[in-house]
């Protein structure tokens, strides 16, 4: 009897405690990020679709078209072609296609690359309605990047 009567003020007090907690949250600043307007910094080890790296001195791709990545890829989504240009020691890449619909971002290509010519990008805005948009031409992309900045 006494316990059940005491339960009423105790229960009411717990309600007030709950309301105090929510009110303190009410006056604290918003912690969500309004995504399309603002974005959070992407972690250094983020794995986006791979991209080619350029030689900072010449601006050309570091890739020597050795096709190790093509062979290492478990999903068979990389296609590389290259030519031996006159006056250069190594081959240069002419075509580097990535079929991102198959890629599982395992990183085998990045690990196997002998001259660090591939790295993970930080792209994540990849929505599209057609499948063809996910077959990336990485050589063309590298050249487009070179012109832009």
């Amino acid at each position, binding site marked *: 009897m006494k316990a059940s009567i005491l339960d009423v003020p105790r229960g009411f007090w717990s309600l007030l405690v709950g309301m105090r907690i*929510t009110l303190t949250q009410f006056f604290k600043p918003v912690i969500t990020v309004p995504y399309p307007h603002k974005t959070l910094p992407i972690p250094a080890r983020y794995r986006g679709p791979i991209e080619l790296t350029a030689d900072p001195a010449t601006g050309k791709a570091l890739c020597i078209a050795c096709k190790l990545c093509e062979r290492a890829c478990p999903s068979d989504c990389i296609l590389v072609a290259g030519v031996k240009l006159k006056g250069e020691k190594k081959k240069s890449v002419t075509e580097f296609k990535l079929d991102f619909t198959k890629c599982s971002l395992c990183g085998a290509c990045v690990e196997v690359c002998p001259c660090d010519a591939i790295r993970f990008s930080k792209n994540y805005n990849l929505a599209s309605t057609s499948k063809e948009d996910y077959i990336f031409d990485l050589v063309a992309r590298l050249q487009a990047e070179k012109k832009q900045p």
Partner: protein
Amino acid sequence: MSFLTAEPVRLLLALVCIMAFVGLNAAYLVLAERKGAGRFQRRPGPNEAGYGGWLQPVADVAKLLSKQLIVPPGTDTILFRLAPLMVISPAMMCLAVIPFSQTLVARNINVGLLMVFSFGSINVMAIMLSGWASRNKYAIISAARVVSQNVAYEIPMLLVVITLLMVTGTMDLNEIVRQQAGWFWHWNLFKVWVNPLMPVTFVIFFICMLAETNRAPFDMAEAESELVAGVFTEYAGMGFGVFFMAEYANIVLGCSLGTVLFLGGWQSPFGLWPGVVWFLLKLYALIFTVIWVRWTFPRTQFYNLLNLSWKILIPISLFTLLLSSAMIKLF
């Protein structure tokens, strides 16, 4: 301009004002609710339509108005169409006797309090009718819940109001406000020398008001996790919109009643602004509390809800009734 002061014209104008007040409040309280929910959860709430989301209600209303009013086969067509109107019209009618200021009242009836409660109980019947008419199992379960919930909470509500009525001695709402003139300890909420349990009666009134308007944590009528949308399940477009408006109209009505009965209505301790400003200030403070409560507590279980009423609220309100009658007899 003399026709403006004629009684029928004045009443018509008052009615138009009340409908506009209810409509605007419904539209913008939905926004306030969503914004408030956002702030309580540390997120911004709707902020895309217009600056800071100010045009969100316009977008919502446009969406609701452009939708087809579907009447599902097998429903009781007349009742199905009638039910939303029956939910909203009593709420609007009750606002006619609420004194927004000393003079700003559509119709000052000397039994205003009685009128509010008699029309207020139509709401239950209308919700039950809509549940019955829509021929949907969720709607029927929800309607049954609404009826038992409202019957349970009408009792402590009326007991509390009777307690207050013995203190005030009148059912004229404007007269009740006039009695609370002076500093805020003259408000009925703090009249502890008349009845030491006066703040408790206000709390009971507030809890019952939440339950009567089917607000969270007592929103068993629209328990979306278990009953889809309860009695609103079969309603589309503005049929649903009217129910939504009625919910907010009932909140406005309940909070204005709480303001009038316990918080001194348009009275202010230091007449800085006109009475209507003080009234709206107190009204929106209460409405904020309603939103605050909704986003603090989870929905109660149904038997706990009935236990709260029958085992706790009714005994306490009966006790306050006895206590205040004894105090009035003794002093």
